[in-house]
């Protein structure tokens, strides 16, 4: 149920979800984790509404780890801080790149439609679309609202439990998220791909699976160095 793509094949994953659900943080962590396994990884910042803000401040840091980052640089454009709703040609053709592709797709339901702009996304057999969810966000804090929300998003292959309260997170809260999101996943007939938890809780949780048996992935916080 959980091994969606065999490890030998290339991994193509799109992270979508509510504004501020943690898509970028999860996408960055996923890219870094895959890179650490020695894989060839491309990370794509597909926030078309605020294309200059998401990964910009950490682009260099990520590039230095060997990840190929496809994101705008402020110096490449002028005056498009907010007005620019545009896609970089390299983003449109990004699925032609070799190796693993991690797509960070901004701005909720409307953002999810961005996949229509990526050449080959519609018939890419490897593409997995995962919804990042945090029960700390009132719009997605219960089974009913999560089910309704995920149904709005079009094609989805799995859910990610990213339940947290920023600096106030507790293991209990993450486990509570696992319960709610696993129940929603059952209703939707989707797998829970993973529960992400801040690395600082590694020894407290001391397990490879969460309370509902979903795999745990440890998360390093990169996005605190960015804004927006």
């Amino acid at each position, binding site marked *: 149920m959980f091994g969606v793509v065999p490890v030998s094949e290339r991994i193509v994953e799109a992270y979508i979800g509510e*504004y*501020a659900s943690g898509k970028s943080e999860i996408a960055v962590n996923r890219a870094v984790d895959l890179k650490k396994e020695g894989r060839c990884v491309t990370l794509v910042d597909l926030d078309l509404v*605020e294309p200059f*803000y998401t990964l910009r401040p950490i682009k260099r840091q990520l590039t230095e780890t060997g990840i190929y980052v496809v994101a705008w640089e402020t110096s490449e454009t002028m005056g498009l*801080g*907010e007005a620019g709703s545009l896609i970089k040609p390299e983003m449109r053709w990004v699925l032609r790149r070799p190796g693993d592709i991690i797509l960070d797709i901004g701005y909720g339901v409307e953002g999810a439609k961005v996949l229509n702009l990526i050449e080959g996304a519609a018939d890419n057999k490897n593409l997995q679309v995962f919804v990042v969810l*945090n029960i*700390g*966000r*009132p*719009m997605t*804090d219960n089974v009913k609202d999560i089910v309704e929300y995920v149904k709005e998003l079009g094609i989805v292959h799995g859910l990610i439990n990213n339940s*947290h*309260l*920023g*600096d*106030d997170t507790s293991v209990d809260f993450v486990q509570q998220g696992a319960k709610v999101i696993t129940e929603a996943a059952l209703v939707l007939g989707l797998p829970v791909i993973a529960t992400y938890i801040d690395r600082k809780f590694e020894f407290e949780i001391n397990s490879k699976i969460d309370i509902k048996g979903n795999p745990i992935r440890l998360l390093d916080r990169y996005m605190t160095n960015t*804004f*927006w």
Partner: protein
Amino acid sequence: MAEKPIQGEKRVFMTGNEVVAWAALAAKAEIMYGYPITPQNEIMHYWTRLAPKFGKRFLQTEDELSAGFTTLGGVLAGRKAFTATAGPGNTLMQEPMSMAEMMRIPSVVIIQQRGGPSTATVIYSQQEVTMTTYGGNGEGLRVVYSTANHQELFDYTIKAFNTAWKYRFPTFVLGDGYQAKMRESLTIYDPEEKGLEFVPTETFLGKAPVNGVKQPVHLRNTYNTEEELYEVITRYMEEYLKVAPEIIEHREFSCEDADIVVVSHGVVSRAAKVAVQELREEGLKIGYFRPVTLRPFPAEELKKVAARAKTLLLVESAFGQMAKLVKDAIFGSTVALENLFKPGVGITSEEIVVRVKEIEKGALAK
């Protein structure tokens, strides 16, 4: 009718704009009027997502002039209405809000400051202080709360509705692009369950007759003679100054024996707090003063601090807009004034620590 938006209280993780939408719901706002402008857009995005679930309404107008005037129209019709804007939108908003001052129409405006002048940046600044406190033609008959974190955005947005309707002065919640977009945890709650009573709205126009007699309502924003206006403004100013002490809020700590007091507001005061705490741990005599209401300004409170301190260090993401309010407030004081002005840019605690140490060094050298 839909159930209450917030039952009891709960710990949540949100962006500041989202917080404002939830706070307006919690405050029982009925309608938002607005025109999109970054960085406040998600206030209306979330309001419009939440509104249908809770029987609330939204009207997108053609610009901020219209957003401001329709908000006032909603209020006159007896609705708990609000709007939100930023930057150049705030500039346009000054025209309807000065009418609100003249006609004493309660109104709530959320401002998420961006860089200025003009379009500048969509990101952040504290450059809308002068405009939000004294914008428009007139005397600045308004209340401005400057928030520093998401909990305050929630608390003060709720409070702003009561302040506006109680005193009938337009009330602003002054945030900024960082607070708008930043994510952090806070507790949201149903204010009434906490014992907060909402000041009831009233229908200003189209009032029901009392004992069969229709009472005329005469709200004016135009006067025929100088004397007529003078009389009205004098009365309004008296009322404003009378209630100001009830409205004024500030925070201070470690000021009792401080040589240098760091004065800052809004999100910058978070950096100032950390800086002051660090410097105290190092044994330096540093204090922290933060006006929460920028209008009316906590003048008496700051005067007391200025009387004891040697230096006030004024720190803001603008070129002296809060400083003007400070200077006006402490007029007559001989305290030295230093500054750290970074218009349109965020300020870190490290920068404040460095600046304080520079001032300390200078004082020792003398």
